[in-house]
C-alpha cells in the first residue's frame, strides 16, 4: 500500500499549494474588475463621501497586498472572515448553500451515474445495434443543447403542460426529504441529461477497448455468456477510465450548475458566487472559489486512488 499512501501525501501537499495559488488568482481577478464593493453596492447613487465612508469602514482603502495577507492569515487560523456586504460570517453564508448544492449534486449523481454506466455497458454489449445508435444519438443530443434550454423544455412539458412538478426548486431547512426530492426533480433531471452522455460514451469506449483483448476472446471461446464477459472480465479492467470520467462529472455537478440554479431559482453555491462577484464581496468569492477548487482536487485524488486500487499490479507495486 505504500504506493497509495505516498500518492495521497504528495497530492495533499500539491492540493494545498493549488488552493493557495487559486486564492491568489481569485484575489488578483477581483482586483482587476472595475469598481469595488462600495461602488457596486451604491451603484448610481454613489457620492465621493459615501464611498469614502464605506471604504474606511471595510478597510478597502488599504493597499491590496495588505488586504490579501490579512485575509490569508485569517484563513490559516480557520477563520473565513465576514462578508463585507452583509457583515455575516462567511461560514454561516456558505453552510446552507453548501448543503443545497451537495444535495442537488448527489441527487443528480445518484440518477446519472448508474444510468450512464448501465447504458454504456449495454451499448458496448450490443455495439452498432439500433439500441447502441439510439442511445448515442439521444445522449449526444441532450449534451449538445445548452442546459438552460433543456431546463426550459422540461419546465414546459412537466410543469406548465402536465402540472406534475413545480417550476421553482425552493427548499430550506424545514423542507422534508421527500418534499425536497419532489421539488428538485426537474433540476436533477436537467443535470442528468447534461452529464450522462460523457460518462456513457466513456464507459462504452473503455469496454469496447477491453473487449478487443485476447483474454476476452479466450473467455468467449470457452463459452462464457456475453453479459458475464462484460461484467466479470471486461469491466474491472475498464474501471480506471470510467472512474476518472465519473469523478470529473461529479465535480461538474458541484461547481458548474449556476445556470440550472438560476433557471429553477435554486439557492445553491453558484448563485452565491455570482452575487458575491457582482458586489466584489471578496471574502465570499474566496471562500466559494476555494471550495470549488478543493472539490476538484479532492475528487481527482479520489479518482486516482480508486484507479490504482482497481488495478492489482499498481496496488501491489
Amino acid at each position, binding site marked *: 500500500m505504500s504506493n497509495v499512501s505516498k500518492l495521497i501525501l504528495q497530492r495533499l501537499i500539491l492540493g494545498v499549494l493549488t488552493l493557495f495559488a487559486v486564492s491568489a488568482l481569485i484575489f488578483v481577478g477581483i482586483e482587476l474588475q*472595475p469598481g469595488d464593493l462600495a461602488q457596486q453596492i451604491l451603484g448610481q447613487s454613489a457620492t465621493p463621501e459615501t464611498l469614502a465612508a464605506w471604504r474606511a469602514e471595510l478597510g478597502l482603502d488599504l493597499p491590496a497586498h495588505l488586504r490579501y495577507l490579512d485575509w490569508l492569515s485569517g484563513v490559516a487560523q480557520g477563520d473565513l472572515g465576514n462578508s463585507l456586504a452583509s457583515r455575516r460570517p462567511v461560514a454561516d453564508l456558505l453552510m446552507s448553500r453548501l448543503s443545497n448544492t451537495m444535495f442537488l449534486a448527489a441527487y443528480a449523481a445518484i440518477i446519472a451515474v448508474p444510468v450512464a454506466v448501465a447504458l454504456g455497458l449495454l451499448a458496448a454489449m450490443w455495439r452498432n445495434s439500433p439500441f447502441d445508435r439510439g442511445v448515442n444519438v439521444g445522449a449526444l443530443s441532450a449534451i449538445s443543447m445548452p442546459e438552460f434550454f433543456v431546463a426550459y423544455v422540461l419546465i414546459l412539458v412537466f410543469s406548465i403542460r402536465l402540472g406534475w412538478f413545480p417550476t*421553482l426548486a425552493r427548499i430550506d431547512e424545514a423542507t422534508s426529504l421527500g418534499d425536497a426530492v419532489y421539488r428538485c426533480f426537474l433540476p436533477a433531471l436537467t443535470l442528468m441529461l447534461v452529464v450522462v452522455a460523457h460518462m456513457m460514451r466513456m464507459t462504452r469506449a473503455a469496454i469496447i477497448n477491453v473487449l478487443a483483448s485476447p483474454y476476452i476472446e479466450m473467455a468467449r471461446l470457452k463459452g462464457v455468456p456475453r453479459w458475464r464477459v462484460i461484467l466479470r472480465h471486461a469491466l474491472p479492467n475498464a474501471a480506471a477510465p470510467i472512474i476518472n470520467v465519473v469523478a470529473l462529472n461529479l465535480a461538474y455537478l458541484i461547481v458548474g450548475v449556476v445556470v440550472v440554479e438560476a433557471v429553477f431559482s435554486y439557492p445553491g453555491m453558484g448563485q452565491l458566487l455570482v452575487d458575491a462577484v457582482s458586489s466584489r464581496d471578496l471574502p465570499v468569492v474566496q471562500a466559494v472559489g476555494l471550495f470549488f477548487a478543493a472539490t476538484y482536487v479532492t475528487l481527482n485524488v479520489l479518482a486516482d486512488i480508486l484507479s490504482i486500487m482497481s488495478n492489482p499490479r499498481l496496488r501491489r507495486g
Partner: protein
Amino acid sequence: MTSTNWATSRRGFMAGAAAGGLVLGMGMPAMAQDHTPKKGGTLRVGYTQGESSDSMDPATYSNDFMFAISYAVFSTLVEIGPDGTAQPSLAESWEPDADAASWTFRLRDDATFSDGMKLRAVDVISSIRHHMGDASKSGVKSLLSQIADIRADGDSTVVFDLTSGSADFPLILNDYHLTIRKDMDGRIDADSMIGTGGYVIENFEPGVRADLRRRDDYWKEGRAHFDRVVLLKVGDPAARMNALVTGEVDLIDRPDLKTLPLMARNPNLRVHTQNGTLHYTMPMNTKAAPFDDANVRMAVKYAIDRQAIVDKILLGYGTVGNDHPIASSMPFYNPDLEQHAYDPDKAKHFLSKAGLDGLDITLQTSDAAFNGAVDASVLFAEAARAANINITVDRQPDDGYWSNVWLKSPFCCSYWGGRPTPDLMFSAGYAAGADWNDTHWENPRFNELLVAARSELDQGLRTEMYAEMQGLCQQDNGSLIPAFGQYVSAMSTKIRMPERISEMWDLDSVRFIERWWMA
C-alpha cells in the same frame, strides 16, 4: 394630469387612463368594482432583485427586495399618498414655520414596535442620524445634508431645523432608507429586525427569500391585510413568468415584455402598469465641446425619434419624454410645453445656428444604464444621420458603468428612478454643484428659481416657477430624455388594490404589502 403625447394605440390609451389615476385590469373589467379590503391569505411575490449581500442596515438598501421589506416591517414618519402628497404614518401631523426652515412633527401616541415598546422621539432622531454625519455610508446622506439639527420637544414631538427653507421636506421622510428603528443609547442597532410596521420577519435569507407574518397588534387602522407574505428572489425572467403561470407565486415584477401578450391571455392573470417617475436619459456634458453650445444640444434633441424608442425598445410600455424630468403623474407637471419630436430639419437649423454643417459625436452606452439602452442608442444613431449628425455608438461593459462612464463621459446613457417632487428631482440631478448633476449644467435663472420655489409655500406661485424650470430644462439643459418607462408587473386576478394607488414607484410605490389584499 394629462399626458400631452401618446399614440392612439390601446396601450397608449391605457397609459393615459393610468395617469388619470385609474387602476388597470387588462382584460378584467369586473375587478374594478371590488375595493373593500379583506383580511387573510398569503401573498407570494417573485422579485427580480435581491442579493445575498443584502443586510437589514437601512443605509445599505439598494434593491426592490429590501425596499419592500423596509416598508412592510418598519415604518416611515410620513407616507406618500395616491395624489403624490405626504400622508400621516408614524407622524400624525406636522407644520413648518413661516419660511419652511423648521418643521415640527407630532408622533402618534399609539404606535408601538413589534416587541411592544412605544415609539419615542429619540427613536426617530437616532434613526435619521444614522444616515447623517461623516461616517455615514447611506445612499440618502446628501439628501439629508439640508438638516442642520434634529431635536426632541417632549417625548412625542420632533423638530427638524433645516439649513434653508424646504416646502417639500415631509416627502423626503417617505424614503425607504428613513424607516424608524429603536434607539439604543443614542444610536440604532442597524441589524435589528424590530420595527413599527404591520409585519414581522419570521425568516430572512438574503438573496433567497423572506417570510413575513402580520402583527396582531398593528396600530394602523385598515392596513396590513395579508396574513403572511413570502418574498422570493427569482432573478431569471422566464422562471418568474413560469412561477406565476403555474401558480407558485401570486405577483411578479418586471415580466418579460416580449412574451407578456402571450401571458396576458391567461384568464387568471392580469398585467398591471403604472406611469411612474422612471425615465431614461442621455446626458450631454454642458461644459465640454461640442455640447457647451446650447444650439448643439437642441440639434441633438431634435435628432432622436422618441416614438420609435417607446414603440421598439419599451414595446409600448412607456411615453415619450420632453427633455425635462417631471413625469405627467407628478405634482407641478407642466402640460403646456411644446413636445419635442423627431425633426431633422429643425436639428439642421440648430446646427447651422451653431455654425456647423454636421456633427460627429460618440454616445457611450450599456444595458446597465437601462434595459435596451444599446439598441436605443443604435436606433438614435440611425435617426440622427438624417440630420447630418453622425453618432458613434460606443458600447461599454455593464460592470462598473456607473463608476467609470456616468458623470465622466461627455455623452452617455443613464436613467433616473425619479423623485416625488420637482424640488427633489431638480436638486438631485440639475442644481449647480449637485453630486449627480450629470450634465454639469449651471443655469443661473434655474438655480435662482430652484431656491426660491423650495421655500415658497404659495402653491400658485410654485406652480409657475416649476413650469418655467421645466421649460429651462427642455431648452437649455444637456439631458436628452427620450422616454418615460412604465412600471410593469403581472399578478393573479385574486390580488386586489385600492381604487387609487401611488404611482411614483412600482407596486403602489413599493407599499403594496401593507396596502393591497387578496379577494
